[in-house]
């Protein structure tokens, strides 16, 4: 599942934690890193002492955090020489990681995530339409023409790439950084719906329309089209959340890379 992941700097995962509920935060940070592929299947986590030092928390807090991860089936602990906590292997049942993530986030958090991502992406698109030069718009169109959206993995990489390009065309360094950060944090979740071929087709159609709006300098249209697209992806998040909470699993077609 590596292909569709866009982790940010590895260092950010281990930056110090500052607030209450630290064991949960340790678990969440490591869960994110595992889901994002920053920590890879089978990889040994840093030692408990090292994690405590890097997160700036007590050893006991790290241990509590690791218990949460074990219970979620994300890490396994091996004793003895060469032991430690290991990220579960890639051959673990499909969707385990994303299911853990979806289970961990409330509906209200998921829909709020959609609102926030949409607001950033809409702003990027509107600015891009107002600020892109003719050559910029042409480059975007040319890139889009050859971007693969036929496979799930390709669609996730390129859908993320398209949002990042919109940020680049907005000429705002802050928006570019925020887009990269958001994708590193939530990309695999947000782009979950791209496992569905019908959704991929709609996303491709909307991408083309966004690019046309940018070519014509129509900021309002670009904004509306991007909002429609994120709405589509956000709906999938809630559908999947409900499925998991009913005791079901993510459809294999949704998480399958092929």
């Amino acid at each position, binding site marked *: 599942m590596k292909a569709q992941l866009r*982790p*940010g700097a590895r260092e950010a995962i281990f930056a110090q934690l500052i607030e209450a509920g630290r064991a949960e935060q340790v678990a969440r940070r490591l869960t994110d890193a595992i889901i994002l592929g920053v920590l890879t299947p089978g990889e040994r986590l840093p030692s408990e002492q090292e994690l405590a030092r890097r997160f700036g928390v007590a050893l006991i807090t790290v241990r509590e955090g690791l218990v949460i991860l074990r219970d979620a089936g994300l890490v396994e602990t091996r004793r003895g020489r060469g032991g430690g906590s290991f990220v579960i292997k890639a051959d673990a049942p499909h969707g385990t990681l994303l299911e853990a993530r979806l289970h961990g986030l409330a509906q209200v958090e998921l829909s709020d995530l959609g609102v926030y991502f949409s607001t950033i992406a809409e702003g990027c698109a509107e600015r891009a339409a107002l600020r892109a*030069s003719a050559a910029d718009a042409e480059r975007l169109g040319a890139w889009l023409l050859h971007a693969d959206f036929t496979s799930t993995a390709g669609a996730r990489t390129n859908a993320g790439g*398209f949002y990042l390009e919109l940020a680049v065309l*907005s000429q705002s360094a802050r928006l570019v950084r925020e887009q*990269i950060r958001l994708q590193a944090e939530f990309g695999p979740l947000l782009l979950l719906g791209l496992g569905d071929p019908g959704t991929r087709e709609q996303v491709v159609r909307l991408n083309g329309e966004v690019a046309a709006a940018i070519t014509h300098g129509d900021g309002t249209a670009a904004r509306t089209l991007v909002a429609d697209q994120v709405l589509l992806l956000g709906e999938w998040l809630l559908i999947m959340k409900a499925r998991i909470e009913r005791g079901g699993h993510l459809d294999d077609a949704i998480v399958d890379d092929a």
Partner: protein
Amino acid sequence: MTPSSTTPETTSHPLRTPGPTGEATAASCAAEVGEIFARVFGILSEWREAIAGASADRADLDELVESLVVPALLASAESPTDLASATTESILIGAGFIAAPQYVTGRDTHFAWWLGPLASNPLLGNTSGASRLDLATRVHTEYLRDFRDLEWYAVPESTNQTHVTGPYVDQLCTCDFIITLTMPVRLDERMIGVVGADVYVKRLEQVLLPHFLALSGPVVLINQVGRVVISTEPTLPAGDILPNRRHPLNNYELLPCPGTPFLVATRAEHDPVSN
């Protein structure tokens, strides 16, 4: 938009406020821009010679490039170089050599690229020294497919000329607003890569703004497509394009900055003297 045919003589302004280097005019601003970029081009061409004359062994090449570019990135008040003469920090935020595929044995496009200190980059963290670009930490650029399609590589490759890309927000190295200068490196008939330097617009602004503010009317530095680099016109900020709905081109006089694709735009109506 093409560079205006207006000559420096017809747009030279009478002295209003003394600039940092004496009389400030649109022409003196354009000259200053030209001099700053000429210095960077000079450095690039020195690097190019050194790299073209060196071995293609990866370790040797990396060591050579590091020894060339890091001092230019770390230029400071304590260790001044030409680049830092007007400021306390280097205007360069990244520099290096990007080798064409197959030039460095057993490699695709090979990046020997260093970043200057990134004091407060919320995404990439703080670095106090120069650090090498590690593409493994830039997985978000995977969608780009092939770096050779990007303007800073593709244009020097096809034209065999030095090229200026931007200003633009770079999502690969700095995640900031920069201008990239790249120069093809050739070995006989073959391009073995490009040497390049990223000019940090915020530091270029620190150098140029005093010159621009010395003029009473707006001064806007734009590239060949009209993208604003630095501006003293609040309604035409960096990143905007001149002309736009609010700023028609006929309100501005354009003066090319020698040796660069940049132009200094000054507002015609603010000039009380018509030549």
